[in-house]
């Protein structure tokens, strides 16, 4: 298959184009804008005959329009980032509560104030309780592939939940990478047209989004069940995807874990840097490996336990910060391992806020510190980027 150089934004746009959505509501925000501009141009060029490309006056309206279109049975795509994702926040809960299989690419960028255009994961992780399924891609190929997979997962009757596919701003969104763009025929084979069981249509009136009284908790519980049903559906989807496209993805991405004593837990594009550092450290005889969190919701506790249970020490590297608490994913990983009889030591590192680069040198430093922690038996909590303050 031919390889093409595309940015992360273009990869997301390609994923959307191949999924042939009925409706794409949009609003620009750096560093996502190129994604919707690409789709707008394709629309103007007649390359999206099955799609209505719409422009809205805010991200709040983007998600509201997405809800309106999905509620009448349309397949919907959109993209956003940072402040825009936060402006959508209210409607994200409504989309998942209404069980609407919207797919959205998110491009991570640090949150104001002060303003940064560069990437960290606070915007994405702020949505972790919104009821959306959440994927975080490592590279542009994975962005495209996951957008296509996301529709299969979202529209499965066992799931019926919206899906977010995240990539890191700049590092992926604006960086060309060589990727395979699948043929439309292959994607059509993998992804059938959306045929919703319950939707607003002529001759069959339904009510969407009414108030409830004591049944509220039942609806919330159904959301939880649906999100947990996604485990099975994600696995099946990966099987079918591999059969057609020859690429395999997992709930978590395991790298050199077989005999690893030290394990770095990462998210997003810094995983690629960390993998390069790990290969160098391996050549120096350090038994280090990596676990990349690919699916954030539903939380793949089983896969994480299987991957980390034999490690001696784990460093959770958070590219985010909950002020007054610490890294966001650190406690999630710790609670996942807590019930193991022989659980590894877990240290926390908060790094790379607002796009501070994650170099191989930094990854090696973290690994050395983790090794020290293993010797001392004392896990650490460290804000790597700001410790000198």
């Amino acid at each position: 298959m031919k390889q093409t150089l595309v940015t992360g934004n273009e990869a997301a746009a390609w994923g959307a184009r191949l999924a042939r959505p009925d409706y794409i509501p949009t609003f620009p925000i750096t560093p996502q804008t190129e994604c919707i501009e690409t789709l707008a141009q394709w629309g103007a060029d007649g390359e999206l005959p099955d799609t209505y490309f719409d422009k809205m006056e805010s991200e709040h309206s983007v998600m509201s329009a997405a809800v309106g279109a999905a509620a009448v049975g349309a397949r919907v795509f959109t993209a956003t980032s940072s402040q825009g994702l936060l402006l959508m926040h209210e409607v994200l809960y409504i989309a998942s509560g209404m069980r609407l299989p919207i797919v959205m690419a998110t491009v991570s960028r640090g949150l104001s104030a002060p303003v940064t255009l560069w990437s960290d994961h606070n915007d994405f992780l702020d949505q972790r309780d919104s009821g959306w399924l959440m994927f975080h891609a490592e590279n542009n190929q994975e962005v495209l592939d996951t957008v296509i997979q996301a529709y299969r997962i979202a529209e499965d009757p066992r799931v019926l939940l919206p899906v977010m596919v995240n990539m890191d701003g700049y590092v992926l969104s604006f960086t060309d990478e060589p990727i395979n763009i699948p043929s439309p025929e292959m994607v059509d084979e993998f992804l059938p047209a959306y045929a919703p069981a319950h939707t607003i249509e002529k001759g069959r009136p339904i009510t969407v989004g009414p108030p409830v009284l004591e049944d509220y908790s039942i609806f919330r519980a159904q959301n939880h069940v649906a999100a947990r049903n996604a485990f099975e559906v994600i696995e099946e989807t990966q099987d079918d995807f591999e059969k057609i496209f020859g690429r395999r993805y997992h709930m978590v991405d395991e790298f050199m874990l077989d005999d690893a004593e030290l394990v770095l837990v990462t998210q997003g594009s810094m995983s690629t840097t960390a993998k390069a550092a790990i290969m160098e450290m391996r050549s120096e005889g350090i038994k280090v490996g990596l676990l990349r969190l690919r699916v954030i919701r539903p939380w793949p506790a089983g896969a994480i336990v299987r991957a980390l249970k034999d490690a001696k020490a784990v460093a959770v590297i958070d590219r985010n910060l909950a002020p007054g608490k610490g890294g966001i994913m650190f406690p999630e990983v710790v609670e996942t391992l807590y019930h193991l009889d022989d659980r590894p030591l877990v240290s926390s590192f908060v790094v790379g806020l607002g796009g501070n680069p994650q170099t191989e040198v930094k990854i090696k430093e973290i690994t050395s510190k983790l090794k020290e922690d293993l010797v001392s038996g004392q896990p650490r909590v460290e804000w790597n980027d700001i410790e000198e303050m």
Partner: protein
Amino acid sequence: MQEFKNLKDLPEQDYFTGGSSACAGCGPSMELKLALKALGPDTLVVNASGCMTLLPLYPNTPLKVSWIHNAIENAASTAAGARHGLDMLGEKDMNVVVFAGDGATYDIGFASLSAAATKNERIIYICYNNQSYGNTGFQWSTATPYGCETKTTPRGKDNPIGTTDVHKDMMKIMGAHRVYAATASLAYPVDFLNKLVRAKERGGFSYIEILGTCNTGWNFDPRLTVKVSRLAVQCGMWPLYEIDKGLLTLNKDFQELKPIDEFVKIQGRYRALPQEGVEKLQALINEHWAQLKEYNGQRYV
């Protein structure tokens, strides 16, 4: 679709049936019931959070048409998405009709409304204007008229007037969007429904604002809802007019307006308004009415 000649001409079929949780004497629910007679069964109502959100209460609904409630500030955008979704799926003859209060329209949902109108989305946007945040118990919105007491503009020693701001001229703003904009009243149902017919036939975006006469918030006897609605028109508090492509048509002209006193004295929300406040309210109404008379049949915005 033909315009209606008189009340006998209205369809008997109702798509808003019994069992709603609306207050006795609720204007907006009667207005929706009327609107659905004109719009028919192939209608999706897009509701913004407010009193009417409580019409369906899971697992019951008094409605025989489809209904979606998203949030308070996004009915126009939700409707735009639904419109395009339906169009793309070949359901072009479904009506998409917003039914939203004034808070959701004038205030928090104004940006989304303005964008949908600018894009001339094929939506009929009905604002039922009860001149307040009614469902939360009658607080001030930018549609609240001068001199009206609300829970967030209470009268007191330092402020005997209550609402000292003059409400937003929404019709002018919507008229400036180059769409069809019209006011309507529960007391003039044929006029209201014909405006819906015109909106539908015209295609594109239409804005119809109906006085959402609210006996609990305005504090009057629920038997008087239609009378209060009629008085509002006769006093010039709620003139009936339409703006199409910038041109103004006054639909209900009067040689002389009834004094605003008649409207004010039967409602608790104005009861303690001092005479100077009543006079200022009358002056504001006179000014607006004179403007409408002056521009009737001419370019207004």
